[in-house]
């Protein structure tokens, strides 16, 4: 038993010593080969594990890593700035492309919702929605359309739909459904561009705004000096017919906002409505302007055309208009002055024989600073309030009434708020006297209109 134990001890002991030696050799080899690696991976080893060469190696590694990080940062910055540059370039090209696309076809529109409350009449809402489509299908050919969507009357119609051949600054050719260049108001009739809801009586009963017709024309601009420019717009159109009205039947008269409409007294019903000409004679209409310093504009318009089916009797019209926007003049630069006069004479007609009228308007634009901190100003970069005063007069000479004339004069005081240029809320009060449209009924109007 003792022998067997001894034998077992003798047998085990050489194997154990060999194993121990092998483990010791491997440990030494491992220790000698990888100490730096081990210390680099374990920076927080207890102090008894570190020694001077290890610390030097550690610092070198940190320095190397720092240099690498700096290199990577530099490379990254370089690549980032290159990418930003490329992105900027792409954005600009995209912007130009969208600009080009915008030039090609642009869809827009304008709308109006108006409320009116006139003494002894029921209150009403009226509205207007118009679609605007413009664009260029060649660098020198552009088109423009304004389509009334028929709110509230239910019948849509083209108010403008023409194509321009752009030849030179001084001469360009236009054809299609043309806005008649007679007076400034007819050409600039968009509701959001106006400062009062109601149009002046002269622009409704004398000049039948919105007045457009089928035809062809030419327009251009001629510089007469650094500060003076002349423009012209001349058209050959079907022209007015003999469907004008001197006296309303039934007494109810029209409203430009569509509120109370029965029969359109004046020249409104004489418009062709884009039908074919009632006679073979074409009418000629045109407007010329002089613009001084791009602030003061004076315009002269003329119209001449046969109106009957069977004779050559003429309607002859003239108009004068002015618009002053003083700039750089302290105090006055916040004012705008507008005025327009129009007259039509009808040959061989007694009801009516002639029609004329005018309006004068003054706008004062302001913005009190305290409103900047309110909801009216907080979210907008350039909001404005405009105080407006207008006086208008119209007269229709007609044998249909005993004293030979129908007149109306209107004084309007209004205020409007524009948070941005193309959105406006208007309120106004009218003082009316006469027999044409509002008669002697005073009333309140308010509207919201927008353009995009």
């Amino acid at each position, binding site marked *: 038993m003792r022998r067997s134990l001894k034998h077992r001890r003798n047998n085990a002991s050489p194997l154990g010593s060999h194993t121990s030696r092998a483990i010791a050799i491997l440990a030494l080899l491992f220790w000698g080969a990888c100490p730096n690696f081990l210390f680099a991976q374990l920076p927080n080893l207890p102090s008894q594990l570190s020694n001077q060469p290890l610390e030097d190696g550690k610092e070198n590694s940190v320095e190397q890593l720092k240099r690498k990080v700096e290199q990577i940062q530099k490379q990254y910055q370089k690549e980032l700035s290159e990418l930003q540059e490329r992105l900027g370039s792409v954005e600009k*090209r995209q*912007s130009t492309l969208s*600009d080009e696309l915008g030039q090609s076809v642009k869809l827009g529109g304008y709308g109006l919702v108006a409320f009116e409350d006139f003494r002894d009449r029921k209150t009403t809402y009226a509205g207007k929605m118009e679609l605007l489509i413009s664009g260029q299908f060649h660098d020198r050919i552009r088109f*423009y359309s304004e389509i009334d969507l028929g709110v509230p009357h239910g019948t849509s119609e083209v108010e403008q739909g023409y194509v321009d051949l752009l030849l030179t600054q001084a001469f*360009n050719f236009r054809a299609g459904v043309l806005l008649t260049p007679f007076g400034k108001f007819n050409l600039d009739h968009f509701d959001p561009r106006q400062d009062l809801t109601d149009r002046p009586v002269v622009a409704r009963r004398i000049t039948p705004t919105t007045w457009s017709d089928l035809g062809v024309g030419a327009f251009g601009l001629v510089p007469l000096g*650094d500060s003076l420019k002349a*423009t012209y717009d001349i058209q050959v159109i079907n022209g007015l017919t003999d469907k004008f009205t001197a006296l309303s039947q039934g007494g109810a008269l029209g409203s430009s906002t569509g509120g109370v409409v029965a029969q359109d007294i004046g020249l409104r019903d004489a418009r062709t409505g884009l039908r074919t000409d009632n006679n073979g004679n074409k009418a000629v209409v045109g407007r010329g302007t002089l613009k001084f310093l791009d602030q003061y504009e004076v315009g002269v318009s003329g119209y001449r055309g046969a109106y009957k089916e069977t004779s050559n009797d003429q309607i002859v019209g003239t108009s004068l208009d002015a618009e002053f926007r003083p*700039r750089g003049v302290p105090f006055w630069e916040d004012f705008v002055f507008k005025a327009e006069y129009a007259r039509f004479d009808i040959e061989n007609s007694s009801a009516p024989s002639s029609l004329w009228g005018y309006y004068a308007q003054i706008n004062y634009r302001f913005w009190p600073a305290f409103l900047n901190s309110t909801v009216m100003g907080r979210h907008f*970069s350039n909001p404005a309030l405009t105080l407006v005063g207008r006086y208008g007069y119209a007269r229709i000479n007609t044998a249909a009434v005993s004293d030979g004339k129908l007149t109306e004069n209107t004084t309007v005081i209004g205020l409007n708020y524009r948070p941005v240029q193309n959105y406006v809320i208007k309120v106004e009060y009218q003082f009316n006297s006469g027999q044409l449209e509002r008669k002697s009924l005073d009333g309140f109007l308010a509207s919201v209109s927008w353009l995009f």
Partner: protein
Amino acid sequence: MSASRNTNRRRSTSLIAFLALALWLCSTIAQAESIAVIVNKNNPSEPLRQVAVADMYHGETLNWPNGERIKLVNREISAPVRKQFYERVLNAKSDEVFYRQGTPIPVQSVIERSDEAVVNFVATIEGAIGYVSLSNLKKIGSDQVKVILIVESP
């Protein structure tokens, strides 16, 4: 006694009024900066007159003499440089909208939010024209674009 007091008061009032006026004038002059009108470096146009630049922004001139379409660059409505450019070059308020000759079509322009962005755009796009404050252009570096008009401060 009271007459001399009145005279003194009047003098003081005049002095204060004069100082206020001088201060206002100084602040007005200090606010006004020279404006540089810039175009792309490859634009062959010679230096332009102020009227010619105004005609472009008014929508009356649509093409460069070489036939390329003019691409207008504007700053946002609230930018001081736009206000000055509109007042001094276009005779208009900074939010005024111009229309293409004989139409109700608004003149279109690219709106950039900084002078640097205007310079970058004009430097990238041939046919572009923009305006920046002259002092900013010097900081940004005018070698990327061509200065075609300088509107001096009044």
